[in-house]
């Protein structure tokens, strides 16, 4: 068995391990031969005073390595420039996410889930160091305080560095109930400290999974069955074998791979292969089939996720307004193409990857290689984007299957085409909403039925209960508006021919899009301004109302705009953050959408690093606007039609408007932030187009033919 501590060191010393240092620090010469102090799974202090923090969540751009370090260092009163961070190994005992029970980074919950555990870890460590110093000085611990990696005894004017306490403190018990700081005492939390991971990202020295280069590594390109579930029928490799640098052709049941001296040989070899496939049961599947099945499924009664009052009665008579909203399959396309490097030996395996689910990667490699889990070492890396794609271990599984056929380590890199065509796609959803308004414009009855995949049923089965997928109804069951009679249902319908999974913004993306689009239409029917209409229904959600008021003021809501321009508003309570967003957009005669300006007001409770929160809003909005303007995966004859950035388009520099993020500061518990902008973007843009053109779009992505030439 690999001991957790041992494997942690393996990671530090292992190839591709990245250690960041917060600041320049020349340690004093410490006592030689003193063992490090390891009070818990997150903190290690050496006799020179360096504090190494092991990150239970992975860094994929969201800034979590810095924020996690800030929380630990805050309670520990660590000198920020003594802090180093390292990737955690796979270890669900020590690094499971408390919100999932699984070692996973997702659902915008790193700070929410680890806020207390990290503070306690820091505070407990600090308490031990204080106790060690007090014993040395023979003074009461209560007379000591800490600052800047030192314990201080003011009465006697003595101070001692943490590093010098390591020898004594290492053997002492760590209290689990050490008092936490009063937030008023925070010195780091709440400040826009520089990120720890960015310097290495400016000069090419950052190491991502795709950069791993264990000695003797070979490179492989792969082609999986173009139709999900298809099998290799025949391979002619004569031409591929002639290519300079091609070393080996690996043919498995459902994929082929070419191994070479470099990726160019591997790619060229793959292109030179003549492969025939048996497409199997999904050979005739098209997007039209997927939609037809989903729409049909939506006619069923769903599993009830939430009821308030009597929605059936409230909607039973009179003028009920009903609409449907749809969002398509989407690919993740993280900038770093999927990859995994694996070395399979008879007695164990080693893998290099950047993953959101390290322990699952370890198990996947073990399974593919036919080894026991304990014999598999996994080195995590920085992730070149995750967005949910790296919550799946499939790239590790296929890499290990290939590596099992190869002598020595092999780096399996997916081409962008392979990445787009073999994604685990954001599910398509079909939402049916009904509501009734009173004569004075209040919502008196509400029904929302969401139909789509249950990702949780596959990914975290215990979380799929009584037919309801908690993620599938996230943002719908907890609709923020005051509605006395409400019913929310979920219909599970899995699409044929594609795998589905989490995508930045997860369930709230779909539900907030449907709800906020529908609310705008209700406001229109009631002849009430969209901000005023929302505001009137936010009595039970004052934090959201405050965010709405702020964004309305900051965006100049209600002021005049040129013809064919409009403002759209969207509000949300998602990932425990309260956010109101206004997008100003213009639609040209051809139906092209020009983004003019974005304002978003954000109440995410206690903020660890304000600049990071702003960056996540900016980036999250752009991620979602990309989907709103371009994102749709389609399938014909079982094959995904898109393949690279020319036909799966991304928003670019020249299309991005100013984005103003307005932070609301308070002492509420921290909310989640990484996915919130994405969720906000789609309905706010849709409503801006509605305001600009009068056209009520009810599907994503935006259909330009519906808005060309239209004007309000």
């Amino acid at each position: 068995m690999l001991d957790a501590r041992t494997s942690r060191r393996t990671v530090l010393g292992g190839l591709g391990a990245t250690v960041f240092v917060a600041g320049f620090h020349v340690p004093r010469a410490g006592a030689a031969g003193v063992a490090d102090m390891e009070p818990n799974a997150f903190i290690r202090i050496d006799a020179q005073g360096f504090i190494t923090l092991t990150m239970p969540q992975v860094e994929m751009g969201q800034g979590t390595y810095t924020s996690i370090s800030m929380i630990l260092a805050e309670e520990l009163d660590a000198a920020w420039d003594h802090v180093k961070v390292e990737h955690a190994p796979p270890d669900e005992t020590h690094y499971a996410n408390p919100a999932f029970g699984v070692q996973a980074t997702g659902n915008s919950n790193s700070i929410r889930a680890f806020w207390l555990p990290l503070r306690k870890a820091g505070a407990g460590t600090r308490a031990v160091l204080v106790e060690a110093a007090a014993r040395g000085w023979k003074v009461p611990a209560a007379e000591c305080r800490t600052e800047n990696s030192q314990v201080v005894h003011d009465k006697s004017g003595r101070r001692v560095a943490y590093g010098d306490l390591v020898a004594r403190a290492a053997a002492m018990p760590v209290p689990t109930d050490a008092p936490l700081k009063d937030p008023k005492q925070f010195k780091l939390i709440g400040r826009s400290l520089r990120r720890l991971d960015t310097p290495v990202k400016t000069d090419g020295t950052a190491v991502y999974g795709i950069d791993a280069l264990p000695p003797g590594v070979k490179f492989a390109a792969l082609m999986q069955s173009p139709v999900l579930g298809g099998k290799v029928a025949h391979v002619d490799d004569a031409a591929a074998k002639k290519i300079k640098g091609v070393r080996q052709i690996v043919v498995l049941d459902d994929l082929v791979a070419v191994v070479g001296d470099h990726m160019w040989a591997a790619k060229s070899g793959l292109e030179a292969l003549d492969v025939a496939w048996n497409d199997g049961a999904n050979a005739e599947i098209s997007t039209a089939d997927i939609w037809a099945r989903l729409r049909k499924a939506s006619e069923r009664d769903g599993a009830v996720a939430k009821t308030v009052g009597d929605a059936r009665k409230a909607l039973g008579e009179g003028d009920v307004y009903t609409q449907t909203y749809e969002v398509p399959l989407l690919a993740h396309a993280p900038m770093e193409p999927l990859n995994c490097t694996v070395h399979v030996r008879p007695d164990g395996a080693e893998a290099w990857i950047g993953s959101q689910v390290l322990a699952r990667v370890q198990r996947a490699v073990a399974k593919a290689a036919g080894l026991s889990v304990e014999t598999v070492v996994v080195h995590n890396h920085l992730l070149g984007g995750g967005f949910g794609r790296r919550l799946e271990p499939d790239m590790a599984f296929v890499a290990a299957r290939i590596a099992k056929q190869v002598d020595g380590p092999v780096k399996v890199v997916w081409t962008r085409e392979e990445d787009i065509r073999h994604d685990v796609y954001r599910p398509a959803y079909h939402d049916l909403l009904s509501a009734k308004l009173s004569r004075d414009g209040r919502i008196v009855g509400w029904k929302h039925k969401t139909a789509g995949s249950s990702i949780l049923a596959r990914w975290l089965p215990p979380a799929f209960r009584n037919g309801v997928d908690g993620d599938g109804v996230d943002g719908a069951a907890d609709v923020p508006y005051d509605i006395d009679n409400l019913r929310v249902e979920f219909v599970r319908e899995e699409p044929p021919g594609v795998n589905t999974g989490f995508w930045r913004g997860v369930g709230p993306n779909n539900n907030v899009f449907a709800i906020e689009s529908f609310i705008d239409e209700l406001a229109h029917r009631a002849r009430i301004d969209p901000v005023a209409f929302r505001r009137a229904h936010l009595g039970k959600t004052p934090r959201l109302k405050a965010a709405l008021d702020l964004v309305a003021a900051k965006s100049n809501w209600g002021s005049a705009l040129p013809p064919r321009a409009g403002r759209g508003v969207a509000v949300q309570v998602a990932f425990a953050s309260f956010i109101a967003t206004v997008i100003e957009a213009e639609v040209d005669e051809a139906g092209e959408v020009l983004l003019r300006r974005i304002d978003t007001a954000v109440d995410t409770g206690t903020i660890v690093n304000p600049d990071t929160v702003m960056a996540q809003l900016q980036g999250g909005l752009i991620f979602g606007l990309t989907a709103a303007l371009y994102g749709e995966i389609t399938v014909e004859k079982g094959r995904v039609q898109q393949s690279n950035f020319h036909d799966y388009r991304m928003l670019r520099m020249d299309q991005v408007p100013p984005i103003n993020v307005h932070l609301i500061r308070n002492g509420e518990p921290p909310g989640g932030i990484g996915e919130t902008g994405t969720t906000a973007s789609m309905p706010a843009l849709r409503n801006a187009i509605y305001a600009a053109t009068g056209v009520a779009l009810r599907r994503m992505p935006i259909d330009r033919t519906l808005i060309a030439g239209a004007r309000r």
Partner: protein
Amino acid sequence: MIELRVNGEAKSVDVAPDMPLLWVLRDVLHLTGTKFGCGIAQCGACTVHIDGKPVRSCQLAVGALGNRAITTIEKIGETPAGARVQKAWLDLEVIQCGYCQSGQIMSAAALLNSVPHPDDADIDAAMSGNICRCGTYVRIRAAIKRAAAEHA
């Protein structure tokens, strides 16, 4: 054998002349700072400088390069524009996942070399070939302006 001049050093590599520079840098010379994003000149992650001009290395056959100067992200900080861009990138905390940023920095440094004080249209023209999936565009624009302002 193909002779190349990479970051001021002579390198000889035993590869086919049609092999794109990207893979020579990454897989043969182990200069992994230059990134693979699309392989078809759509994303800019692989941008390097050839004689100071930005080029997509995924589309550039090594056989055609001769003695031209290849500069990669690993050494762009040794040029004045490169150093200013790197500093502005950190000062404004542009970077998120960072995977696109080698290419962004190379494109931005090349822009400042040819247009010392770019306006928004210059920035759009020079930078729209570089995709950032994390959506750092707003800060890239601001950081380019900051780097330009620090140019005496």
